[in-house]
């Protein structure tokens, strides 16, 4: 077995030194009644060539986004990944490292995460960001308990235009606590500030919105921040598509108190839903209530600059039952991917890619809305996704498009029964005009 280097002679030597006759003697403390009597019932072991062939067969039963023109988003985005990302972020020195508890030999990881935190702050226009969370949904759940703790208030208002899976996770995270989560309607595709104001009260801890929201629409961030702040509540903004921040108003620019998000779009592969990258950022005043790891800059005994995990008294390994969160293992490698991605694109590239998304989606949106039987569900400005009402069930449209190797948008009925005829279409920079025109052409023949 190539992963177990001990030879029979070495085993004998080790048993002799250990002072036991057989390996079995080392398991004598396990009660006989609970020991397995035979081998586990598992498929036979495979050699490497057999295993690779088997894995290729399994992969071959999937159809991936290299084989399709993908117009599907809804929280997971098909963006171009520069070659620097796999070649640098997935280097074995980063890939096979443990959490950087021994700072003196982990300066590379620590500095990379410090830079990731800085990049997140720049992107969101917030003061401080942590080293990562599991994903956008769970980060949003954590933000709710953070807000409840900071304000000592029991109610959370969440827009129904927040990703439905984020809201499900939010409920799972809070259902057993003394926290109530109430939905705010978004009938026009965006959260209505007047409705938010009516629901707002002095016992509300946070108003949670997403922008661009699940329907692709941009929220009125400033107005919603005012609604929250007027009653002493916090504004939590979830960002499911961080590429948007190359172009649209950043949450820190309109008064967000906590920003959460999904960083998958920043260079991470689609990976059938994970591993992804949970983001969380906040204002300086709230840093000691942040969940998860933080890297800080300091100096060594010789005065040389260096980086360490810091403010650890918030964390479970020190504070145990009184920690701000139970998170330990996070998504560091995905954070590193995001850092390499953002460094490679840089100041100009992030604006460029955001503009490409917005322009192509705008073009597709206009072309589809002009088709007979199709109309835009919402009028609000959108980034790279938009909702159209369809003359056929969107599931049916998707089936027909697949015959032309087009992966259509998300039928919204599964999350919003009242939007059963609606289709959430995503157009990133990876779609060409030709692909958009082909999509429009096929829709025309279906109609």
């Amino acid at each position: 077995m190539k992963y177990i280097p001990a030879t029979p002679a070495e085993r004998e030597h080790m048993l002799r030194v250990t002072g036991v006759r057989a390996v079995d003697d080392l398991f004598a403390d396990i009660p006989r009644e609970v020991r397995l009597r035979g081998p586990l019932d598992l498929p036979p072991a495979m050699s490497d060539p057999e295993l690779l062939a088997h894995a290729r067969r399994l992969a071959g039963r999937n159809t991936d986004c290299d084989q399709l023109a993908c117009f599907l988003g809804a929280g997971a985005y098909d963006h171009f990944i520069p070659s620097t990302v796999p070649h640098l972020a997935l280097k074995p020195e980063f890939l096979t490292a443990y959490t950087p508890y021994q700072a003196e030999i982990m300066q590379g990881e620590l500095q990379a995460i410090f830079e990731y935190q800085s990049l997140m702050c720049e992107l969101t226009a917030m003061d401080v960001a942590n080293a990562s969370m599991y994903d956008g949904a769970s980060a949003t759940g954590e933000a709710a308990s953070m807000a409840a703790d900071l304000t000592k208030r029991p109610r959370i208002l969440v827009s129904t235009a927040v990703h439905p899976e984020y809201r499900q996770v939010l409920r799972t995270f809070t259902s057993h606590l003394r926290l109530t989560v109430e939905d705010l309607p978004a009938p026009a595709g965006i959260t209505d500030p007047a409705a938010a104001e009516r629901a707002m009260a002095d016992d509300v801890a946070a108003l949670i919105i997403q922008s661009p929201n699940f329907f692709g629409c941009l929220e009125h961030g400033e107005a919603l921040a005012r609604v929250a702040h007027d009653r002493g509540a916090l504004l939590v903004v979830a960002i499911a598509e961080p590429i948007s921040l190359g172009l649209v108003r950043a949450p820190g620019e309109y008064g967000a108190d906590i920003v959460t998000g999904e960083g998958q779009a920043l260079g991470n592969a689609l990976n059938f839903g994970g591993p992804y990258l949970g983001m969380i950022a906040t204002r300086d005043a709230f840093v000691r209530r942040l969940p998860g790891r933080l890297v800080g800059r300091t100096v060594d005994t010789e005065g040389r600059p260096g980086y360490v995990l810091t403010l650890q008294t918030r964390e479970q390994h020190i504070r145990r039952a009184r920690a701000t969160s139970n998170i330990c293992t996070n998504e560091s490698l995905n954070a590193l991917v995001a850092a390499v991605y953002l460094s490679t694109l840089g100041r100009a590239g992030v604006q460029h890619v955001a503009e490409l998304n917005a322009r192509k989606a705008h073009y597709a949106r206009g072309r589809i809305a002009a088709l007979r039987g199709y109309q835009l569900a919402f009028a609000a400005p959108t980034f790279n996704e938009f909702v159209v009402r369809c003359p056929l069930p969107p599931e049916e449209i998707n089936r027909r498009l697949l015959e032309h190797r087009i992966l259509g948008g998300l039928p919204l009925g599964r999350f919003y029964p009242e939007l059963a005829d609606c289709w959430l279409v995503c157009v990133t920079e990876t779609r060409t005009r030709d692909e958009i025109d082909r999509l429009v052409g096929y829709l025309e023949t279906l109609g």
Partner: protein
Amino acid sequence: MSAPVRPPRPAAPPLARRPVPVIFERGAPGRVGYSLPQSDVPDVPLDAIIPAAQRRLRPAALPEVSELDVVRHYTALSHRNYSIDEGFYPLGSCTMKYNPKINEDVARQPGIARLHPYQPEELAQGALQLLWELEHDLAEISGMDRVTFQPAAGAHGEMTALLMIRRYFEDRGERRTTVVVPDSAHGTNPASAAIAGFQVIEVKSDRRGNIDLEALRAVLTPEVAALMLTNPNTLGLFEEQIREVARAVHNVGAQLYLDGANFNAILGITRPGDQGFDVMHFNLHKTFTTPHGGGGPGAGAVGVRAHLVPYLPVPTIERDGQRFVLDYDRPKSIGKVRAFYGNFGNLVRAYTYIRSMGAAGLREAAEMAVLNANYMLRRLRDHYDLPYDRVCKHEFVLSGRRQRDRHHVTTKDMAKRLLDYGFHSPTIYFPLIVEEAIMIEPTETESLQTLDAFIDAMTAIAQEAETNPEIVRSAPHETPVTRLDDVTAARKPILRWRP
């Protein structure tokens, strides 16, 4: 055979000493490192797409660097990083075993990495089949009935399991408010219990390092929802009275939870389900070789016995003839603990590993992990205090109190000195019940030569503590930086670069 013993000399890992400026300080205004096409759609003023009032006020101050600047930067950082591919990580409770390269090749195929989570099930049959098979493998290995892959890490799995337990009792009309943990538990156990809304009661360990059965019985009331136990525990010792513990817990109607961090010791030897556990989490990034990535991503599957199956997060993966489907129609489910289905890329790696190993290979891994640990224990016991003198499982805990009391050299000092000898340090000051704890886990993937070299370094450091304590107290000396000022870092936090 072990090499003839030569006193080792410090030989730090070959890490670059040259400091690396932050990426923001590289490059020059106007420099770019990306290549993207120009827009191919008709030009429209941006204002017509997104009104100025909803656009960014100020561009994000991101780096302005060339591709080669980026390459040099992250390459330089990688040279200042220790990793398994570089050397030995004897980190107790972390199971830092080798991460097979074939796992990476399998996980990075486009047919795996380029799948959208919402693409139709018909287009993802290979992925769903893999998950379905992995669930069955883990159920067989653990003696559980079903497994969810949604949790992203061990602590996330703990929370998921505790929410399921909570829902299970609510369903039975029982209100149970308390979770019991031993004093040797991982910090995540009480933290997860608190986050799941439970009070935490701690129970002491007995003199053999087991949970104290009498103390446990004394706190087991109908208020208790669960006992969270790690087995082998964080002292590296198998809970010898596990059957009595299970009986006591079940007698008050509570659930027995296994923290599976130490599962590597018992693969193919004993199954948690057969020991009486009702629910457990797996750390696929420990036992099943998915790389730790510098702190994550992990993958924290949760296995349950039949009575907890209705409460699993949605979706589950079901087989319908030759077809695999996602099942969301589970009315008693706790819901979701993250979006989509879990850290799929890591699940693929764990699956690949299990297929490489087979049943005999997994058992051999456990046997060698345990033999390696006992061999090291035998060779180190004369040089350090051994608080619990028993056959250990995959890890063992020494104490540095002799060195502290006699030579004023702490466990932290010795851990730092190990860095000079080219090794990552063991887990230290954990479990909390051992003073000056040094927790060593070799794993099965390290060779006898590596174990011997580490033993020699530990022996040399014990010697240095007597003859030259100052060199240990001021360690490390050979690393890219010396000890860092944690106090100032926490008092005046600098958590980001500022222009």
